[in-house]
C-alpha cells in the first residue's frame, strides 16, 4: 500500500507536499525519543505530536509518512518544514485507536 492509496482508502487529508512511498509498517508514539529508538524505515508514524521536531525525527528514521490523528491542527511551521523535505503529513479525524482498526482492516502493517 502506498501513501496515496492510504489517503484514498482511509480518508486521510494530505497537508504537506510529499513523495509517494510504500508503507511498510506502522509505528505509534508521541515521543520522538521512542521513534528514534524503535521506528523503522517505511513505517507509517501515527502521532498527535505536531511540534516541528517531528520532521527531523521522521527524516532520521526514514518513515514513509506521518499521520496526525484526532483531527489535531498542525502548525504551519511544521507543514512547511515537512514539505521542504518531501515528508507526507497526513491528517485523520479519527483518534489513534480507531484509526488502527481501519488500517489493520486494510492489511497495513500486517
Amino acid at each position, binding site marked *: 500500500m502506498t501513501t496515496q492509496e492510504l489517503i484514498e482508502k482511509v480518508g486521510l487529508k494530505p497537508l504537506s507536499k510529499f513523495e509517494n512511498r510504500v508503507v511498510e509498517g506502522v509505528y505509534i508514539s508521541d515521543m520522538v525519543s521512542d521513534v528514534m529508538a524503535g521506528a523503522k524505515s517505511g513505517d507509517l508514524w501515527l502521532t498527535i505530536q505536531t*511540534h516541528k521536531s517531528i520532521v527531523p525525527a521522521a527524516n*532520521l528514521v526514514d518513515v514513509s509518512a506521518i499521520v496526525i490523528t484526532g483531527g489535531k491542527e498542525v502548525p504551519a511551521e511544521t507543514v512547511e518544514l515537512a514539505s521542504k523535505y518531501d515528508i507526507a503529513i497526513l491528517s485523520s479525524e479519527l483518534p489513534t485507536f480507531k484509526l488502527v482498526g481501519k488500517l489493520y482492516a486494510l492489511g497495513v502493517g500486517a
Partner: protein
Amino acid sequence: MSGCQHKWKMKNVEFGFVVFEKCFHCNRVRTYFTTEMVAILGDEYREADHFWHRVENAQSFRFDLQCSVCGDLESFGDLMGLLYCTGCLSDCRLEILRRELEAERIHMLMACGFLGESELKPKQVRLDKLEELTNYFNQRRDTARSRIKIVPFDLEDGFCRCKGEFLYDVDMLSQEPITARRSPF
C-alpha cells in the same frame, strides 16, 4: 581496529531524562542523564558556589551500539542528544554545512555531549563514534533516496547564539497543550 564492516543494532536502550540545571548566580548551565523520576521543575539547591535549579527535564534515551557480526560494543552514554539546525544564522558554519549536505539529500544532525558546570561548551563525542552512529542510521534506510550524517556540534561559542533544537520530548506531562518551546539556555 577490527577489519569488520560493522552492522549495528541498538542495545541497552534506557529511557530517562536529560536534565538541564542553571545556576542563577553565574548563569552557567549543566546537563546530565538520569533514569530516576525527576519530578519537580524549578527545584533549587545549593552546591559550593552554585545555586542550581532545574530548567528543563527532557524525555530522552541512552543506548549502545553493538555489531551483529563481530559483537563489538560502542557506548554512547556520553551523547546528550542530537540537535537539528533551524537555519537561524545563514553564515553559521554548521548551517552552511547543512545546506551543502542537503543539496545531496543528506540530512544533517549535530551530536552534542553533556555540559559540565565548569564548561562553556558541551563536550564532544569522538568523531569515529559519530561515524559509526551515522552508519547505524544509514544501514536502516534506502540510501539511494536519502542519507543521514551525524556531525559534531563544535561551534566555538557553544550555545550562546545557536537556536538549534534537540530531538527530545518535553512537556509530555504538561497538563496544558504546549504552544512553543523555550530554550533551556
